[in-house]
């Protein structure tokens, strides 16, 4: 066995490939020579399956794409179908959707910080992140009955109204959040080892990031305030005041900072939405059998992982003729070899973690 040009297979069963991703890594002792991601180990044929299901039936399957942020997929899909069918969503439903989606973003980022820290060796932070996340899962459980894949949206609105008890619960969870984030930040922000492991690691210039189609927090960490909630506001996002956090670092540390700020911004949006929650219906009148006239539509939303898009082509029946998902993780993952160039073997796990990929979304 040669020590130079050692070819390593990370995955599909490896503790830090976040599921069943496989990386073919060539290392020269500890320095990375080349790296090639191999995906498809979780390819479930979702797009083919969608073609045989009616529009409402597809909704629960979208939960299983980005399963750490299931609501974000529901949201993107619902908006795309509504755009295609020309359904007007009541204002209250739009607000409730924003609340749910932003809570999901918080929960997704909390899980992310846990995974990222765990990959770098700070095991405790994984547990902290997951414990903090439980508060938000409780809210989803109270709202729709599920913890992870909750099917929290319907075409035309949301399945349930927000009642006062739940609103109080959301406020309580948000009140505890700043303290919890600070706790994690005290552990990490000024930690020398954490900084060594993240600063300057996984650098990608802004131009490269755009060329590789990077979206989401990774792109914002490169200094580009690219956020679909601001760029092309949907579901009343224009009503809320929030910042799009960016840094110019464009390394793992920058991505960490951006996500931690995004948690705070999401909390800000939820608070505003709760304060100004309009009265009215929570779901529009949608025919039981939804037949959508022939047409095609492409709509993107800002999911926790990046820009999530749905392309739907209808043919006048109650099932889509073709539906394609633009998965942010899939596109973000392409830039992994670029980010790893010249790096050290241990960097791979940190960089991969900073991309925040979810295999369910990559492989569909």
């Amino acid at each position, binding site marked *: *066995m040669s*020590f130079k040009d*050692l*070819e*390593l*297979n990370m995955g599909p069963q*490896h*503790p*830090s490939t976040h599921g069943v991703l496989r990386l073919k890594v060539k290392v020269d*002792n*500890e320095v990375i020579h080349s790296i090639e991601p191999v995906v498809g180990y979780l390819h479930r044929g979702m797009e083919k399956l969608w073609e045989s299901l009616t529009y409402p039936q597809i909704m629960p399957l979208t939960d299983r794409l980005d399963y750490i942020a299931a609501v974000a997929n529901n949201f993107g899909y619902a908006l795309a179908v509504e755009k295609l069918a020309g359904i007007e969503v009541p204002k209250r439903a739009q607000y409730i959707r924003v609340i749910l989606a932003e809570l999901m973003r918080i929960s997704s980022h909390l899980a992310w910080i846990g995974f990222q*820290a*765990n*990959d*770098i*060796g*700070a*095991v*405790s932070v994984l*547990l*902290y992140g997951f*414990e903090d996340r439980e508060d938000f899962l409780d809210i989803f459980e109270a709202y729709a009955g599920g913890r992870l894949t909750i099917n929290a949206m319907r075409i035309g609105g949301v399945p349930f109204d927000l009642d006062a008890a739940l609103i109080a619960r959301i406020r309580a969870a948000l009140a505890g959040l700043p303290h919890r984030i600070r706790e994690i930040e005290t*552990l*990490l922000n000024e*930690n020398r*080892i*954490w900084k*060594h*492991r993240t600063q300057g690691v996984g650098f990608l210039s802004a131009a490269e990031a755009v060329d590789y189609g990077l979206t989401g927090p990774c792109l914002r960490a490169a200094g580009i305030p690219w956020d679909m909630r601001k760029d092309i506001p949907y579901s009343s996002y224009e009503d809320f005041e929030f910042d799009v956090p960016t840094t110019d670092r464009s390394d793992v540390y920058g991505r960490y900072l951006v996500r931690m700020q995004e948690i705070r911004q999401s909390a800000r949006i939820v608070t505003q939405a709760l304060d100004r929650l309009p009265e009215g219906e929570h779901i529009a009148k949608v025919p039981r059998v939804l037949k959508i006239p022939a047409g095609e539509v492409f709509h993107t939303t800002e999911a926790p992982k990046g820009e999530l898009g749905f392309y739907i082509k209808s043919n006048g029946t109650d099932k889509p003729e073709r539906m394609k998902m633009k998965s942010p993780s899939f596109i973000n993952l392409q830039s992994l070899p670029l980010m790893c160039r010249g790096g*050290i*073997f*241990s*960097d*791979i*796990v940190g960089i991969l973690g900073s991309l925040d990929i979810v295999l369910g979304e990559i492989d569909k």
Partner: protein
Amino acid sequence: MSAPSPFLFEFLIPLGKIVAVLFYPLVMVIVMIWLERRVVALIQGRLGPNRVGFEGILQPIADAVKIMLKEDIVQREADTFLFNVAPALVMFSSLLAFCFVPLGEPIRIGTYELTLWVARSPVGLLFVLGMSAISVFGVIFGGWASNSKYPLMGALRSVIQVLIYEIPIGLTVLTVVFFARSIDLVEIVRAQQAGKVWYGLLMPISAVVFWISGIAETNRAPFDLPEAESELVAGYHTEYSGFKFAFFYIAEYAHMVLVSSLVVLLFFGGWLPPFASVPTLAFLHKVPGFLWYLAKIMFFLYLYVWIRGTLPRYRFDELIKLAWKWLIPLSLVNFLAVVVLKYAL
């Protein structure tokens, strides 16, 4: 009571001590495994094992029984001889080192003087350090003989890590030896008693550098690169199962107990009670020295766990930088300072 026969003195007592030296580290390991799992759990806001025995104290026993009854796998591609030798070597060297670790001053029972060590040598410290360094061969053999890539990388990391961190360990041990004028562990403790000051308080830099290097030598967080789970799966013992894996596992903990013992003996007065010079605290002398010794070891074992629960893992290049840029220069300067101060005063 009639005079005890020479058979008792010359055969049974040494035999008993040998058995004890096998069991003492193992008991410490069991306690340590339980302690680690419980303390890490508490740090992480969990409960930790609490189902078997009182507060889960039997958990390590259940683990041990289970793991010893597991299938022993030697994969086809492995170098069978080295693969089998490696865990034994690691275990053997760790346990052998304990022979030279004294637990306290001799106890007088009637006319017989019971020494609390199995073997005492004028070069006991060297022997312990040597044995502790030999255990890395087990790691290297294990990693290489597995004929698999992750273990190999783990072994490579381990070699470099131990090579580098032996240097600050040697330099800091020298300062202690310099003061105590002995490399006999019993004499070093006695010198601290005579000098009325623990060397850790006299030379804090030595103590800290030794402790950090000790963590690195035992491959524990944040220096657990040879078995970094998120990178190398399980590092050098990825291919080991059952009993042999248990050997690696136990040896790692035994090694931690050993390093903690060394820190206590070299820098924190071994079995001496604290505040020896304060008359009002003289009651502390009533507590047997062995308990003081255990308490101090437990403190350092606890530190191990605490550090593991808090810090991320170093990257390989930073690990090396830490040694070459900080620990080695620091221990060199420290050594010179100690020499100068000793002769200037």
